[in-house]
Each structure stands twice: as C-alpha cells, then as structure tokens.
C-alpha cells in the first residue's frame, strides 16, 4: 500500500492530471495481453526523464515496486504489477526527438508507437526494421524491454541490433547514458544490450537512439501453398539452407489460414494444408533472381501453387492479414495462448511435426504459425480459461513443446520474453550458475528489487 503522504509526493512530481488511483484506472493496468492479472496501487504517466528520476527516488526511498508499461501488448505478463505499487506508463512520453537519415539514426522517447516511427521514417525513404505483429500499437520502450522481433528480423535482426544508445533511469533514480550514435562503438561494455530484453527489471528506458535503414528499391511478396504441412516446413529449411535470405518467411497451417481469412475477409487458399508468405527485398535484379529461385525451391518441395502479389496494396493486405492471426485465433474460443519456442531452421520440420503430434495427443485446438525462416515457432492454442482440465492439458503440452524445442537445439522464447509466463522453465535452458549471474546483475542494478519485482529474476 502507498500511504496518502507518498501519494501526494508522487502527485507533485507529475501534477494531478497524470497521477491516478481511481478503481477504473487501476483496473486498466492489471492486465496485458497474457492471462494473469494484478492491480497496481497507483498509475503515473511521466513525460520527462526528470519526472521518472524523481519518481524513482521516492520509490527507492519508500521501497515501492515500480512496473513500467508501454501499450501492454506483451504476451508474458511482463507488465503486470504482481507486487502492486506504481504502474509507470510511458504512452504520453512519445515524441520523436531527432530524425537524422544522413547519419542513419533517430532519437525517440520510449512511449512512441513503433508504427508512428515508421510513418515518420517512410517520408524520408527509411525504416526501422524490428516489426512485431503489434507494430501499430506497441511502443519502442516495450519493444526494447522485450527485445522484440518480427517477420523481417529474419534478414534484418531484432531490436537489440538497432539500439545504438539509450538514456536509462536506474532504480535509485540516477540517470545513465549508454552507447553513442555510432554503429561502431567498443567504448566499454555494450551496456545497451543489457537493457534489451530485460523486461523492465534492470532500468527504465527514457530515451533511445535507434539505427535506421533505407527502404530497399524493390519488394516482392510471394505466396506458396501446399497440400502437406511437412512439405511446407521442408521448403523453409531448404530455402534458408541454400543461402537465400528473404526479408521474411512466415508459415501458417490450415487452421491459421482459415481464421486469418475469416478475420481479414481476404480470399486465402482455405483448403491448403500449409502456406508460406515470403517477402524479398533488395535491388530489382537481385529480387527478380531470388524470386525465381524461391519459386523453384517451393515447387521442388511440393508446392501446388506459387503466386506473387501484383500490387503494393495486395502485398500490404497480405501482411496486415498476417498480423491479425493472433487475435483472430481467439475467435475459436474465449482465449488464445501463443508459444514462442525457437529452433535452428534446419529443425523446423521436426519441430512442427512434434508440435502437431503433441497437440493431437493432448487433444488441443492448436494452430501453427511461425516466423519460420528464423525457426521462431508460434503455436497458437485456443481455449476456454474456465475449462480447468483443458488448461492442465495445455500446461503439460507446453512443457513438452519446450522440452522438444530445447532437445532440438532451440530456446524458450524467440521474441515474446519470459515474464511470468515462462519463468519456471528457465532451468531448461540455463544452468544454476547462469541463473545466479542474472540474479547478481539484477542485484547490482536494483539492490532493493523494486523494478518489476516478481518476474523471472
């Protein structure tokens, strides 16, 4: 509990218009896109680094938990304030501070929506590669804290590959700056990487300098459809294995194709057992050549149909439809869980086969979606949270999926993070000494344990 005196001190930092403790506001910060919930005591919307620092000084002094939040779209309860305290929401701290395409960087505040940044950059002929499915709603701060990736990270890499520098407020309220505007920088530890994927447990990002990239001259969107899911998966391993590097390569099974078709109203090959949505970009000649090689490989692996989007709009619509998959899957049942196991791409066929087999054995309503080109699986499980038996089966199946992934040289999460959702499975991929190292880092940066407590460290 936060007493009235502390409340008024906090209120003084941001003013009464950005401090809330009414039941409605608090309830709205009890959830994110995962199923677990817990309410904070107060909600604060900072707008400057100084405000954040002053809030942290009070929290540090009074030992109050602080959980950051962007748009609350993470799927691992990372932003749920399980130990109550302050929910620190960055949606109002959302300016673009500088766009510098000559030196290829932008400086932004953490609450900026990724998609808004893309709009600003597109005008200059540039883009920021990390493109989570939540691109139009999630914030840069949340993307950094989750080290978000997305379809085109196959070619371009994930968030941490694009963070050049950051301003971070520590648990004590101290303000530190890590990194610089230079792509090449080995001046000391690469501290920015430490905060990428830290899920708000090590420090609070109040400003980020991000690397941006020119938009490629040419693009193609290819759609390959199959009568057999295994053929679909084999194509992925074959294409990547042969040295072709598409910008993105997404796989959907029949169930996912159908929910996406329902939600988007697009005509997709509903009877197909598997489908690949592939994006290639680069200079026109190379794109043309790659496209032909991809089509060849797809056919050789049994694709019954390979088509190319004719217009930009058609291509945009296909990608927009793809982004609906997660939410759309929930049409099948009251809720949807999405897993995030990632394996080396050569093992994608095995992983998909095993996942299907596990789902059937536990009698689950599971669809397979994957950023297949980089081995990032997103099995979607539609379910009713009220059905306790089903939940238990899901838990067991998830455990088997993780174990299979790890046995295939994979890892627990490719991009969604650990949060609460997967905390108990960390020992599958890390030995005790490694877990201790993480705990030591946490203790150094946040000795009182007030930053997003109750999560994976």
């Amino acid at each position, binding site marked *: 509990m936060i007493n009235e005196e502390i409340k008024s001190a906090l209120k003084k930092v941001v003013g009464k218009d950005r401090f809330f403790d*009414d*039941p*409605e*506001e608090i*309830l*709205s*910060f009890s*959830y*994110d*896109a995962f199923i677990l919930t817990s309410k904070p005591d107060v909600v604060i*919307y900072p707008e400057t680094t100084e405000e954040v620092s002053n809030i942290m000084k009070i929290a540090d002094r009074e030992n109050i938990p602080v959980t950051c939040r962007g*748009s*609350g*779209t993470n799927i691992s309860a990372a932003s749920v304030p399980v130990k109550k305290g302050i929910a620190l*929401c960055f*949606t*109002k701290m*959302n300016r673009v501070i500088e766009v510098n395409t000559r030196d290829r960087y932008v400086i932004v505040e953490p*609450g900026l*929506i990724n*998609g*808004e940044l893309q709009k600003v950059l597109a005008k200059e002929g540039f883009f920021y590669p990390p493109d989570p499915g*939540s691109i*139009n*709603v*999630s914030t840069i701060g949340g993307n950094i804290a989750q080290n978000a990736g997305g379809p085109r990270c196959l070619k371009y890499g994930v968030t941490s590959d694009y963070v050049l520098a950051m301003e971070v407020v520590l648990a004590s309220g101290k303000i530190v700056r890590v990194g610089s505007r230079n792509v090449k920088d080995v001046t000391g530890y690469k501290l920015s990487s430490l905060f990428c994927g830290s899920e708000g447990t090590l420090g609070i990002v109040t400003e980020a300098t991000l690397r941006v990239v020119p938009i490629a001259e040419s693009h193609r969107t290819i759609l390959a459809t199959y009568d057999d899911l295994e053929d679909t998966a084999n194509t992925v391993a074959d294409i990547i294995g042969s040295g072709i590097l598409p910008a993105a390569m997404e796989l959907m099974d029949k169930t996912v194709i159908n929910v996406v078709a329902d*939600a988007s109203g697009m005509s997709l090959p509903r009877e197909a057992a598997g489908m690949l949505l592939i994006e290639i970009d680069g200079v026109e000649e190379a794109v043309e050549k790659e496209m032909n090689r991809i089509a060849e490989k797809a056919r050789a692996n049994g694709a019954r149909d390979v088509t190319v989007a004719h217009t930009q709009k058609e291509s945009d619509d296909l990608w927009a439809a793809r*982004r*609906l*998959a*997660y*939410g*759309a899957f*929930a*049409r099948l049942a*009251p*809720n*949807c869980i999405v897993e995030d196991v990632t394996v080396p791409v050569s093992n994608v066929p095995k992983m998909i086969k095993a996942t299907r087999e596990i789902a059937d054995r536990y009698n689950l309503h599971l669809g397979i979606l994957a950023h297949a080109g980089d081995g990032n699986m997103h099995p979607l499980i539609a379910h009713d949270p009220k059905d306790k038996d089903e939940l238990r089966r899901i838990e067991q199946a998830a455990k088997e999926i993780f174990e299979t992934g790890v046995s295939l040289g994979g890892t627990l999460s490719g991009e969604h993070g650990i949060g609460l959702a997967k905390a108990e499975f960390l020992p599958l991929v890390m030995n005790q000494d490694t877990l201790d190292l993480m705990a030591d880092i946490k203790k150094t940066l946040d000795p009182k344990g007030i930053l997003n407590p109750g999560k994976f460290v």
Partner: protein
Amino acid sequence: MDVNDIDKCVKCGLCLTSCPVYYEVCREPVSPRGKVQLIAASKRQNLSISRNLENIFSQCLMCGTCTQNCPSGVRHDMLFMRMRSQIVHDFGRDWKKRVLYHFLSHEHQLKLAAGFAKFGRNTILEKLARDTKLGNIQIKNMPRVNKVPFRQQVPGVVEPAGKPRGTVLYFTGCATNYVYDDIGHAIVKVLTTMGYRVEIPGEQVCCGLPMFSQGGFETAKSNILKNTKLLDRPDDAAVIVDCATCGYALRNGYVDILEELHADPSAARRLSSKVKDISEFIWQHFDELEPFLDPEKPKVKVTYHAPCHLRNSQAVGTDLIEQLLEKIPGVDYIRAADTDSCCGGGGTFFYDHPGTSKKIVDKKIKNATGTGASLWVTGCPECRVNLSGNLKNPESLQVIHPVQLIEQSLKK
C-alpha cells in the same frame, strides 16, 4: 448482457491506436480494450457504476473503428451502448445532456428550435454554450436552421420527367429536415433525374440513434417501430438515406436494439436489406445518371472525409466513394492522408470533451487543407457540422455532401 461477448476480448491491444480518442488521450481506460475490460469487471461485480465510469464511457465517439479493427470479433458498439444504458438507468443524466437528448427525442421541439434564426441561438442552447461555443464549435459557425423544415418544402411524392424506373423512399433524417435542406433538394433532383419517383413519407421520425447510442434503448424503441412500419415496403427499389448515422441505425442498429429488447426484429431485418446510402445507390446505378452529367464542367479540387458510420458501420468503403468521385466530371480528386479517420464530432462528444474533440478535428482540417482542395465532401451531416464548424476559413474549403457535388455536375 451477454458475458460471452466480453470474453471474446483477448486483450491483444490491436484496437488501441486506431481509436481516435485513445490516440489523443493515451490512457488505457478510455481505449476500446480498457472499456471492454471495465465492462467485464463490472459484470463480475468487481467494479461499481460511478461518475468516473460514466466519464470514461462518455469518452467515446461511437465510431465503430475498434469493432472494425478487432480480430476477435468483439462487438464494442453493442457493449458500450448497453453500458451507457446501465449508467443512464443507475444515474439519470446531467441536465445539459438531457436537454439535447430531449430535443432529439421529440420532433416537435426540434421544430420549435427550427423557428430560431440559428441552431444554438435560442435560450436553452445558449445556456449550453460555454461562452460563445457549443462544445468545440463557435456558435457563429453553427449552420443556419432551415426557415421551413425540408419535408414541408417538398411534396410527399416527386415524379420524374418520364415514366418512372421505380419508386424510392427517402428517409431525410433530422439534419436534412431541419438544418441542411440543400442536401434534400439535391437528392430529389438527382434521383428524379435518374428516373425515380421519390416518395418522402411525412410521418417519419428521428432514426433514434442519438437516443440509443446514449443508452436510451426504451426511448428509441417507439421511433424504431414507427419508422420500420413506415418504411418496410417490399415493392420499392430502395430506402435512401443521406446521413451515415441514420443509415447505420436503419441498417444495423434497429435489428440489434430490437433483439436486445426482445422485440421482433423481422420487419427491421427486411428494411435493413433495402436501405442504401445515397452515394452507394448512385454508384450502383451510375449508368442511369451518366447521360445527365455535364462533361464540360470546369475542374475543381475535391477531397473526402469518410464518415465512420459509413465505412465502419455500413461497409460503404472509401474506395467506393473515391471511384464514384473520379467519375464525376469536373472533379479533381485528391486523397487526404487521414481520409479514413474520425472527425471527432461523435454525437455529443464534441461538447462533452471539447479539448480532445478539437485536437482530432484540427488534424483532419490540417490534412484536408493540405490537399489544396476547395470542396470537402462527406456523406454525413453530423460530420459536416463538426468539420465546417471548426474551419478557420470556411470560404476557402467548403464542406458539402457528395450528392450536392453530383447535382452541381448535372447538365443545366
């Protein structure tokens, strides 16, 4: 209330930034997801109805953009209306709203108001006006009220020149009847030119949407039943509406509300299939209009604002209207960057939350002005009031209904 509707929300957040109110306010409780979760909590008895909750639910344009963007198929419109209805039930409503509400639910009072020289320049509305403003709109920028209501200016039936192709029923809506008679005359002219016999039933009443979107289901019911009875005529070619909001009501709202109130929706369902927005009707029968268009019409730059209740609630997409505009001689169409976003008027939103509303509308105005157009067409009188009311320089960018543009392009 159907609990399952709420359970459909997986809290993915994909509806957040496309909500015009959330985009400005950036606070979760006012977001579509937040509102759905608040309803869920109040259903589960974890949250009681309060003034604060009322305020949150008033921060909504009822624009339907969230429903349009929700992959899980959550029906925000119905959920929000029910919630508003419950709030009305528990609290009554504040006097300011009651006045407007009253106005809209009683035709004769609107007629009375129409007697004044300007909408808003009467004693009751004067009180509403903060300083010289009604919400975000300067009173002086409010449209003039028709001297005589439109339906009294025209006969109940207008015949075309030759043998009629068919009969269309014209539901004028309150806005055309009391404020924008120019739209009404344009519709009659264009439809009769196309060869239709236009029948304008005199007993039609307000579509009811202003009431039911504020949660007044029962109040709306008698209007719904009256209009349905009047307009449900299987032999006519179509029921024409010129107001996106009335169209939404007649097409979808009536069936939903009657079902909600456990009344028989079958007549409303039949009516629903007959209702056509005027622009949509013209597009579908363009060959009947084309010979009468003046190919020599001088070029004028035109941009478009897509009313939410047209694109979200009636599936009359922007592409359809744009294709229509491109076919009208003399139209040099330029798309604004945010053609498809809400104008921020939202029924009573513009005076409940003038600050937020102003931010939303100013962005629209900036983008529309940026196209260099001199005409801004929009198929919704409510949007027209809000857009034209907020223009700093209404002479350089005139807001009109697409059908007026078409009428101006007819051969003389």
